[in-house]
């Protein structure tokens, strides 16, 4: 599988990343070499191997439905780039 520059542009758009022409070139090459390396795994017969859902051999980690204190509005907004009247303020969406 080969990643094209168009795919890099598409993924960058989905991730809201602005890339220079040079970066697009670099990332296309880097992503391709990563995928090439991972392609070694294609040599294995994984026909009867179920896909890994999680690397840890754990399941069913649950918590009880018990209310815990939330944080204050002030704390919640501490790291917000912009806020107003207790709301997070965000730029134009569409």
């Amino acid at each position: 599988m080969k990643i094209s520059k168009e795919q890099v542009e598409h993924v960058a758009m989905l991730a809201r990343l602005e890339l220079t022409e040079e970066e697009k070139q670099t990332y296309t090459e880097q992503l391709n070499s990563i995928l090439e390396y991972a392609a070694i795994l294609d040599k294995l017969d994984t026909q009867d191997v179920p896909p890994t859902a999680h690397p840890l051999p754990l399941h069913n980690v649950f918590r009880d439905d018990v209310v815990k204190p939330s944080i204050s509005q002030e704390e919640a907004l501490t790291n917000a780039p912009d806020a107003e009247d207790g709301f997070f303020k965000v730029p134009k969406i569409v």
Partner: protein
Amino acid sequence: MLEDFEIVAGVEVHAELATKTKIFCGCTTEFGGEQNTHVCPVCLGLPGVLPVLNRQVVEYAIKTGLALNSEIAEFSKFDRKNYYYPDLPKNFQTSQYDLPICLGGHVEIEVDGVKKRIGITRVHMEEDAGKLVHSGATISTSDVSFVDYNRTGVPLLEIVSEPDLRSVDETVAYLEKLVQTLDYIEVSDCRMEQGSVRFDINVSLRPKGSDKLGIRTETKNLNSFGSVRRCMEYEIERQAEVLSEGGQVIQETRTWDEGRGITLSLRSKEEAHDYRYFPEPDLVPMVIEREWVERVRERLPELPDSRRERLLELGLSAYDAGVITSSKALAEFFDAALDKFKDPKTLANWVMGDFLGLLKAKGIPVQSSPVKPEGLAELLNLVENGTISGKIGKSVIGEMFESGKGAAEIVKEKGLVQISDTGALSGIIDKVVNSNPQSVTDFKAGKERAIGFLVGQVMKETKGQANPGLVNKLLKEKLETM
């Protein structure tokens, strides 16, 4: 134009679960609260936090799957659905992709007396998003928007139907049945006006006789059966027009403008449907033990269909049984009243007539009715044993709603006890007969109906308190002696 096409529709229903806390953190799910006060580092998606799944969410999902005849997966996991929208602080929604908790299933609906099975594709768990308030009139005319994350992380079930629906009526019947079921099994409080249940409607048209699917549109976030009906009617007409003119329907997401009664395209460059799902590394998978499923199954309450069936066996009409079982609260009310007053048909008449009428007039739900099942039963027993007439009963129930007092208390206080005393009634009957000679003559001339008028006059004289059966009998006896 519409006659040339067949409608093919499917629905996705999002229902907020009635847990006390959010799906992955201990923040409360309570409605209201000042903006951004029901939040914590987990549901705000701050770096370095770990979500932990609420066991109750899984249990409610299993319960729902069982009620919808689904298969409960033995192995299930969460995935990240990636997209950028400020109502999700993490820039992805934790949802389920290829291994949902419930697969398959069906709901049975009835439209115009015809029963039909609507297939369920899947049911999965996910988190709700936050609330956006725009600075302008619409999202696209707003320079900035304000975000409240109180609802972010509230557990949702997404219930996806097969494209088995062939009309607006079928679609609404399916949604009503689904919401009714969620209400019965008490997994969601189904408060539609608060948006705790939302519908996404997929609809397409195809030429009659064709078995190929047409191109569909999806209208998102409807929150009442009425909007679903109006939106579908509009969208069907719109698509039929496009197709009749030789055009093509564009596959897209649309939004319903309730005010204008139209659907609008939501197309934009941003809306690239490329969610790049991948397994959620912060949550370990679930292995749903069969014992757990069986424990939930044992505790599953009686479902609407079987409840309705039971009322039909008691002799209620299909319509009455349908209305009474339409909500669990009303069905429970009926059963509790029936426990104290043994005539199901009379009870149904009162429940559907005066009781529901008064509730509706006051705009209060059955659960908070000032008249309790025992109270209604007490009233009906007073009518049944002749203490008060049915007519007086109707004014007593109104008074019960107003004052919250018991039926017997009101009857005693206001002296409403039915006059069943022959001596007391005879005097009034004499008076009525004497002042209505024309009716007496009519009766004598064979006009049986004239007696109805005389009974009415006696009832009027006694302010409705006379026992009508006795009045009838005494009047006849009196007239025969004349």
